[in-house]
């Protein structure tokens, strides 16, 4: 697999509630390749949402706390020297994309990649591996999402990584017009571009005003605006400007950039195939249908053209006919803008249709990850097998669905070892109850966290390991 755009490793999250410590995530590791759609499946409370939300610190903290883990996101920054125009420093690309820690070498800067120093002491920086700790040996510029400052985090949110939620209707602010809500995302991520565009428009405006006889006053005001926007271009977060926006007459200057925002919002809405976008911009959320709101939310999420788009159960609340429309839309958009998508759902049917790779989660751990065809053909983890066996098929008459006995465990005191073992028919008390299984690579991109596939623990017969999906078809 190509260098991942996002590599989550050992993510551990707890919630300190009054009923005890909920061990929501217990060392979750994920890779997301560029342009791929990763399907994240699991039942309620398995931690799918917590995983992605904690990446951009959207879990409530407190009670939540991210105990450990890293999330390396490949994130080139605009070249500071040329402001993205392209220059020597960035080799004309306008972006800086080499790891600062290792200057693109990919080796640990402390031990030069030897893993240990001359005196034989192993390198603490890279835990003796020799890989660059900052970019995970890719040499590209990566940031650890979990270590970002609030300010950086804000920049990442919505631009590098943006989200779609299940309840589109409640994701939109009921008292703000759609236009205001779409415009925002441009305002906070592309202010520079907006300013440039506005300035250009203003200059044109001034030219035109020159022509007109009565333009004198107008020119003055336009000039004022022009200076203001030049200012904004340099220091985006200017308190003065924020103040000016409250001053009655001067406030007008802001309309120009708002016009610019409106333009882009319209494009954004068109992109998600919303009919009559002009009306929609003026509407309030409750005036739109479920399908429409979900489209709006998608438009907002794509506004900052993200590298990773997280879709958290985007179609669960919708009817089949609308669901298919949205899924189709997402397929098309993905082709257009080539972002990687993390698609969270509990519906394996949807996964089968939209995902390239699938990661199955159970009780805060990754049970199995594999390419989508692979996982449906050769589900290895007992849980995955049960899950696939339990789906009713629309194009097949089943005599009986296979069941997974028991219930999802309470994560305040989860079962030790493999969290699935109390419900697992293959469980061998000795290992499963005591040791937490790691992800074993069983080849062709198929990883499974189950002792059954640990070559060093031959307690299971090959017959056990045979991927059987108990679907009794007639």
């Amino acid at each position, binding site marked *: 697999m190509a260098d991942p755009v996002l590599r989550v490793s050992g993510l551990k999250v707890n919630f300190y509630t009054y009923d005890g410590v909920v061990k929501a995530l217990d060392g979750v590791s994920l890779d997301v390749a560029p342009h791929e759609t990763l399907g994240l499946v699991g*039942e309620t409370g398995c931690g799918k949402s917590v995983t992605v939300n904690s990446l951009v610190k959207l879990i409530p903290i407190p009670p939540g706390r991210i105990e450990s883990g890293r999330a390396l996101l490949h994130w080139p920054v605009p070249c500071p020297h040329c402001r993205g125009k392209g220059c020597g420093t960035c080799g004309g690309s306008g972006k800086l994309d080499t790891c600062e820690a290792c200057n693109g070498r990919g080796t640990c800067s402390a031990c030069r990649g030897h893993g240990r120093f001359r005196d034989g002491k192993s390198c603490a920086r890279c835990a003796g591996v020799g890989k660059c700790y900052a970019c995970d040996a890719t040499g590209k510029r990566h940031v650890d999402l979990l270590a970002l400052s609030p300010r950086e985090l804000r920049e990442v949110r919505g631009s590098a990584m943006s989200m779609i939620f299940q309840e589109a209707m409640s994701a939109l602010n009921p008292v703000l017009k759609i236009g205001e809500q779409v415009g925002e995302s441009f305002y906070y991520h592309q202010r520079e571009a907006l300013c440039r565009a506005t300035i250009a428009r203003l200059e044109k405006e001034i030219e035109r005003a020159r022509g007109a006889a009565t333009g004198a006053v107008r020119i003055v005001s336009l000039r004022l605006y022009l200076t203001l926007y030049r200012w904004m271009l340099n220091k985006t977060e200017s308190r003065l400007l924020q103040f000016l926006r409250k001053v009655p007459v001067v406030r007008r200057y802001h309309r120009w950039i708002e016009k610019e925002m409106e333009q882009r919002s319209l494009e954004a809405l068109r992109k998600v195939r919303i009919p009559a976008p002009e009306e929609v911009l003026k509407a309030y959320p409750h005036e739109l249908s479920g399908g429409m709101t979900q489209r709006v939310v998608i438009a907002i999420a794509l506004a900052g053209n993200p590298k990773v788009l997280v879709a958290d159960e985007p179609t669960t609340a919708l*009817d089949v006919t609308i669901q*298919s*429309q949205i899924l189709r839309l997402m397929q098309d958009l993905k082709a257009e803008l080539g972002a990687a998508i993390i698609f969270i759902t509990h519906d394996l049917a949807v996964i*089968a249709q*939209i995902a390239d790779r699938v990661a199955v989660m159970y009780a805060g751990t990754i049970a199995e990850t594999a390419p989508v065809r692979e996982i449906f053909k050769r589900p290895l983890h007992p849980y995955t097998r049960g899950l696939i066996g339990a789906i009713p098929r*629309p194009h097949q008459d089943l005599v009986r*669905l296979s069941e997974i006995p028991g219930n999802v465990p309470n994560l305040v005191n989860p079962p030790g070892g493999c969290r699935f073992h109390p419900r697992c028919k293959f469980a061998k008390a000795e290992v499963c109850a005591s040791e937490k299984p790691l992800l074993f690579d069983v080849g062709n991109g198929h990883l499974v966290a189950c002792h059954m596939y640990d070559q060093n623990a031959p307690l299971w017969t090959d017959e056990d390991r045979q991927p059987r999906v108990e679907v009794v078809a007639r």
Partner: protein
Amino acid sequence: MMGEEPMFRVEDLKVHFPILGGILKRPIAWVHAVDGVSFTIRPGETLGIVGESGCGKTTVGRALLQLVKSTGGSIWFAPPADGTPSAPVNLSKIPRRKLRRLRRSIQIIFQDPTSSLDPRQLVKAIVAEPMRIHGLTGLRCTKCGSVVPIHLERPGIACPRCGATTEAVPFKGAQLEARVIELLDRVGLNPEHLFRYPHEFSGGQKQRIAITRALSLRPAFLVLDEPTSSLDVSVQAQILNLLKDLQREYRLTYLFISHNLAVVRYMANRIAVMYLGKFIEVAGKGELFDDPLHPYTRGLLETIPVPDPERRRELALMKGEVPSPVSPPFGCRFHPRCPVAMPHCGWEGRDLQKVLEDAIHEASPDSPLSGAVAEMQADGRTLRIRIGPDPERSRAALDAFLAEGRAVGTPIYQAIEETSQQGDEFVISFRETREPELKEVKPGHAVACYLYE
């Protein structure tokens, strides 16, 4: 089974809800939740109702128990007095106390187990309450005193233990608790759950409790209203299997309501597809899935995602969204979204209004169409257009637009009956149509669509 007397015969069932509004909060409009539905349910079968949210499927289920008062039509129910169905009664007419007694044999499982269980009642109380209300009696052996298990109970059956005669005893104290435990055990819960509150259980377990409560009355008929849509896949499998087993053991009759075609296919023998308060297709499940007739049914089957990456395909699209049930479309209610709609499917003013609005939106500002329409006002089959400032030009533009449409052969334009001009008002009226009614086109396969008339 076929010949048998139906347990339910529902004729032209209507349920309309008022929308209150205006200054005095009087009904200003009606939601046609269920708008003339007829069907029968035979003993022992499972009728599935499938449809999108807001199509009225839930309301049908509630109307069978008269939890919502039906606005029109009749619900004939043949209460099986000790196994053999007796004379049918019309549930929508009988007095409330009688109805309350009849509810013994008609029960319902709701979608959301969390809200359907009283948070302040213990499981024991929840399960026992129905038996208390109806003062149920159980059969006890005259010799060994053991209570006959629920699924064996027949009047005058011999004691399964010692073969002695049995007598009817009202459930109280120990007897009652014994029966509750027996029931809980049957659905896979155990006695230690007796004295817990609902919130201590998982969704699946709560649904099991709800099922127990319904079973405790030994009903003949169960309405299953999306019983698993709030549950996870693995739990759903457990519940669905449980329901199937129970049906076999207690010879239950089900009405299974769901939006999930796959689940309905798994549970039902016959399936009714519902759209905007109407049944549009009713067929045995094999029939329905192998040879769907109604365009909507076809559309559904093509749009549902299949849990199999091998059969991965570009998802088909059904255009538009479900219209509001307050003023459902004329003629066939599906016609605005129908891919194979025909001129006589019931086109009306607002359809054209929408088309025109979109067209005007797309049209470039300098095209004649853009200024042609000052105002549109659709009522029923006619669309009144106040044409723009420049009458000739506007009129010409509109005519051209309509003509173009006809030429292409789009049904809506062909449905236009006549166009007339009164002053600056341009009136377009569509041809009269009736609604297609549900007709058997094949044995056991009825569909409401003009394609098959």
